[in-house]
């Protein structure tokens, strides 16, 4: 048995394979091909959830992704996945689903009291009610409201091995969204032109509305067969286009069939980023609800959904359903159910007369013309309906166990709106249709209000012909398709939006927004449809209020006393349906979230016991120890000060600058002069932004008249390359200069300490490294342990030091050779922490001081700015404000009591009680050269304060500390060591 309400085979459940599942602990049986919703309905389950705010009993309302009510939790081995629409959740063996937002149980929910209290809980009530005291919102009201409202709860244990989603990039000439008769006809025609066509549809099967009409099956099969034959056409079912991003870019989410997940390595979703030269939007229409009192009682469903459950799954959603409708199209469901043997309790048609009503009466179905539903009896399921004439008179009661409603059809034009289409009111169909310019796409079929399967198919063909013509293609000769079934003549819609009466009439079933809430919004001044939406949250739930969107606008129009065309609809934004974060993340999760850049010597550092730190994308050795604390750092720094150390500085940006005008170009991008640099010399350089602030620093070395190499800070390497390329191409287009990024080609080591020359001498050839022949700031090509490279005498540590650059592939052998030669002097590899200790003692700046807010003068470098010639930042750096004496200037700081430590970020104040800050500590470290800690700080008028005492105040640590302001050059201010 697969349920007592299964009365025929159903298009998707033909195989009749039984599947066991459970809902709220109850074991049930469904069929392969079922959704959870169809399986529940087949078993006669009508109550499936409690509503968001009032905890009212709710049932299944739709047959697709527009479902507002039937959201469930799915329990898996990884936890609980909330808010899954039962109407799209495909049934798999052993599925365990639970209803949401109820306690203790679905049939008895304690918070249903909210429904009785609803006059105290109108739209926006929490803005007004929970105002004071101020602290209470966060601590009391919000947690309480969050517990009472809301839907499912996320409770997922993220599995380490869970497969990521995939991202697929699609390129096509024409994207066809929707595979109903319009989309199928368009794709089949365009396929003949040789244009690449991508046809996507969110449903598990292609065919759209034709799946619900047996007369269309041969036409549909013929079209699908034709598409199959065409190599230029790709078809994707289960793929929902969720956003239009302009320039022909669309986002789509493919949800894999449960059976396909294992074969795809556990991937459940694919995000498809589609780039198309032209669009055919054949997304059909959405049936609307009618806002009558009790339109949310379980058993009230859209008429088209009932037809869907019958045709797709062979399920009769009720045993004695009544209908409430206003179009001839909606009668299809009544006729189909009658054909299947379901007794109809009566059709309530708003219109005084219609051709379909005549046909129904001829079949012996009772039709109440010019009548409306004024109320629903029954709480957990429809029991009876109160019917009145359209003018409210002549009350009577109809016994029924279901009410199938249809308020007409709204074109599903959200994607067109995202592409800028204006909405045009069409009184003939009581709906807005999108006016999209043909450069952005063609809207066809029901999506533009062209209703009827045959009319839509012809509309699709016309668009295909127009597009083929625009591309200069011929459609060729078509083999004749089967004749289109003839459509019966019908009577037009009579618009009906709300039926006044006692009780709540909902316009948004998921967010519990009623017609009264919309009117309240209007009374309180929220007259614009976008304001009403935000005040009431109408249309802001996961279903985006699709089946009631226009109804809310109509109620607002009535409250304002203007025509609906003057109110419009809120702008629909991406995503059109919920998208799992996993699908957006794709493969870029965990270690693939961002790339890791490893140094050429990464494995050596690892073997040497390094602790690594992420610097941008780089992994750099922080210290060669797993021990925490300062001791290992200070041991490394001390080795440099006393003897010799080596550190890997390969992460520095390195850019080769070549050409006849290389020197002129460097003069333009550096604030100090570079063209005067002699071959074989290096120079420290600073770059400014055009606004005069510090951009970056580094060294420039000249290896030939037309050949320079510059270094950038690690963090700025990519940005400086872009900056130089921009300056060269935009502002110096006539210069003969070639820029080449060689950052990854060269490994670079700093060999630092008083014994560094002796170590270097043992491995270098081609250069005499004596102090006279190779002085401070010299640069030369040389060989190191036989490997060709470059040697620079530059120092970041403040000691006698060299930097050795060799091709990255040779890094290991040269590094090992230097270590071997250094053994005699106890050479010590040092990490980023020790590097930092050394540079702070010396007063060298890094990113903490080059923070974008500092000028050259702030850092004591004003004298470096050249007086002659133009350079980036020259003019604006001369503004007096950038060298004003009260600006934050770089100084050194030391605690007055050497036993106490400094804190980065601590504010400097005059007196302990001062709230106004004079500046802050940017960098600090325990010193190896001096007793206690040393630091750098940016202090208002700092240079004039050298010799004064201030208070360092760290609010985070609750500490105040007297500190001495000193020169930033706390080590060897005469630069004797680097020149030794």
């Amino acid at each position: 048995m697969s349920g007592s309400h299964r009365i025929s085979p159903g298009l998707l459940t033909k195989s009749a394979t039984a599947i066991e599942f459970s809902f709220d602990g109850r074991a049930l049986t469904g069929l392969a091909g079922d959704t959870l919703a169809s399986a529940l309905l087949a078993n006669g389950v009508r109550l499936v959830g409690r509503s968001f705010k009032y905890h009212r009993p709710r049932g299944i309302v739709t047959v697709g992704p527009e479902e507002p009510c039937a959201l469930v939790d799915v329990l898996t081995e990884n936890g609980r996945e909330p808010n899954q629409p039962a109407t799209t959740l495909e049934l798999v063996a052993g599925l365990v689903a639970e209803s949401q937002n109820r306690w203790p149980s679905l049939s008895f929910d304690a918070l249903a009291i909210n429904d009785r209290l609803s006059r105290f809980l109108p739209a926006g009530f929490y803005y007004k009610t929970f105002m004071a005291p101020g602290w209470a919102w966060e601590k009391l009201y919000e947690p309480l409201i969050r517990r009472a409202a809301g839907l499912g709860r996320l409770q997922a244990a993220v599995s380490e091995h869970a497969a990521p989603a995939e991202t697929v990039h699609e390129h096509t000439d024409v994207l066809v969204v929707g595979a109903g008769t319009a989309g199928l006809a368009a794709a089949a025609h365009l396929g003949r032109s040789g244009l690449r066509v991508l046809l996507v549809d969110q449903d598990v099967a292609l065919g759209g509305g034709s799946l619900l009409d047996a007369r269309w099956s041969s036409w549909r099969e013929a079209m699908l067969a034709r598409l199959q034959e065409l190599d230029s056409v790709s078809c994707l079912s289960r793929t929902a286009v969720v956003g239009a991003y302009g320039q022909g870019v669309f986002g789509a989410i493919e949800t894999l069939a449960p059976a396909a997940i294992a074969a795809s390595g556990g991937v459940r979703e694919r995000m498809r980023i589609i780039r198309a030269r032209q669009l055919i939007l054949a997304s059909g229409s959405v049936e609307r609800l009618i806002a009558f009192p009790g339109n949310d009682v379980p058993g009230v469903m859209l008429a088209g959904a009932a037809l869907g459950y019958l045709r797709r799954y062979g399920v009769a959603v009720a045993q004695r359903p009544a209908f409430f409708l206003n179009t001839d199209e909606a009668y299809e469901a009544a006729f189909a159910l009658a054909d299947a043997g379901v007794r109809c309790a009566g059709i309530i048609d708003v219109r005084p007369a219609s051709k379909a009503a005549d046909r129904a009466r001829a079949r012996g179905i009772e039709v109440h013309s010019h009548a409306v539903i004024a109320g629903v009896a029954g709480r957990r399921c429809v029991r009876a309906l109160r019917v009145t004439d359209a003018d409210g008179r002549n009350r009577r009661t109809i016994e029924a166990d279901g009410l199938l409603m249809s308020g007409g059809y709204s074109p599903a034009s959200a994607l067109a709106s995202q592409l800028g289409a204006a909405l045009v009111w069409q009184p003939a169909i009581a709906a807005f249709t999108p006016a999209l310019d043909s450069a952005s796409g063609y809207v066809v079929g029901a999506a533009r209000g062209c209703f009827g399967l045959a009319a839509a198919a012809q509309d699709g063909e016309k668009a295909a012909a127009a597009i083929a013509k625009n591309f200069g293609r011929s459609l060729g000769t078509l083999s004749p398709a089967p004749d289109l079934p003839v459509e019966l003549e019908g009577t037009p819609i009579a618009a009906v939006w709300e039926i006044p009466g006692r009780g709540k009439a909902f316009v948004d079933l998921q967010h519990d927004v009623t017609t009264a809430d919309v009117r309240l919004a209007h009374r309180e001044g929220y007259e614009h449809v976008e304001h009403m939406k935000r005040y009431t949250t109408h249309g802001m739930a996961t279903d985006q209020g699709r089946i009631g969107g226009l109804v809310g606008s109509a109620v607002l129009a009535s409250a304002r006393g203007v025509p609906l065309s003057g109110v419009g609809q809120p702008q629909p934004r991406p995503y059109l349906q919920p998208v799992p974060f996993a699908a957006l993340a794709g493969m870029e999760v965990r270690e693939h979230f961002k790339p890791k850049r490893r140094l050429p010597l990464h494995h050596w550092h690892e073997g040497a016991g390094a602790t690594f730190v992420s610097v941008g994308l780089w992994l750099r050795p922080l210290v060669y120890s797993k021990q925490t604390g300062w001791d290992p750092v200070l041991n490394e720094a001390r080795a440099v000060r006393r003897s010799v150390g080596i550190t890997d500085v390969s992460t520095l940006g390195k850019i080769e600058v070549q050409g006849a005008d290389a020197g002129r170009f460097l003069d333009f991008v550096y604030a100090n002069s570079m063209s005067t640099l002699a071959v074989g010399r290096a120079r420290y350089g600073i770059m400014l932004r055009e606004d005069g602030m510090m951009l970056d620093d580094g060294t420039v070395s000249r290896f030939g008249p037309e050949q320079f190499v510059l270094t950038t800070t690690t963090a700025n390497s990519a940005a400086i390359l872009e900056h130089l390329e921009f300056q060269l191409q935009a502002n110096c287009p006539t210069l003969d200069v070639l820029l080449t990024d060689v950052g990854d080609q060269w490994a670079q080591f700093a060999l630092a300490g008083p014994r560094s020359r002796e170590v270097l001498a043992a491995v270098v050839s081609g250069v005499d490294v004596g102090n006279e022949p190779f002085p401070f700031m010299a640069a030369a090509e040389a060989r190191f342990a036989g490997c060709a490279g470059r040697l620079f005498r530059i120092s970041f540590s403040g000691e006698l030091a060299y930097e050795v650059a060799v091709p990255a592939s040779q890094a290991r052998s040269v590094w090992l050779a230097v270590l071997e030669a250094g053994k005699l002097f106890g050479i010590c590899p040092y990490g980023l922490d020790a590097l930092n200790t050394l540079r702070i003692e010396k007063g060298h700046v890094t990113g903490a001081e080059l923070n974008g807010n500092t000028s050259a003068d702030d850092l004591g470098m004003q004298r470096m700015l050249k007086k002659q010639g133009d350079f980036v930042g020259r003019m604006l750096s001369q503004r007096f404000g950038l060298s004003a004496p009260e600006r934050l200037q770089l100084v050194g700081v030391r605690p007055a009591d050497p036993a106490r430590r400094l804190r980065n970020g601590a504010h400097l104040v005059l007196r302990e009680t001062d709230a106004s800050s004079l500046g802050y500590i940017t960098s600090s470290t325990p010193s190896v050269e001096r007793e206690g800690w040393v630091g750098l700080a940016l202090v208002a008028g700092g240079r004039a304060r050298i010799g004064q005492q201030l208070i360092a105040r760290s609010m985070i640590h609750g500490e105040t500390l007297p500190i001495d302001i000193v020169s930033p050059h706390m080590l060897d201010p005469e630069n004797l060591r680097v020149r030794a």
Partner: protein
Amino acid sequence: MLRIPCPWCGERDEIEFRYRGDASKPRPAADAGLEAFSTYTYARENRCGWHLEWWLHVAGCRKLIKLVRHTLTHEIRAVGRAGDSLTLPPEGSGG
């Protein structure tokens, strides 16, 4: 997301490029004075309409290119190399 027709590489996704600002403002001559440099650095119109822009193809040819783009509709009307002079369509036309 923009699809940018690089004159060197063909049409590519926006993520391959870095926006480098208003291309209708040439850098003033060295002797142009503080006012001119201040305008060049800070004054931006933020207009709704056609805009001449610099884009650097960082994940492609690394060439600087010029685009004529409509800031409301994102339509790209013209594209050129760094040295090309592109003219903006009249205000209110197209886009």
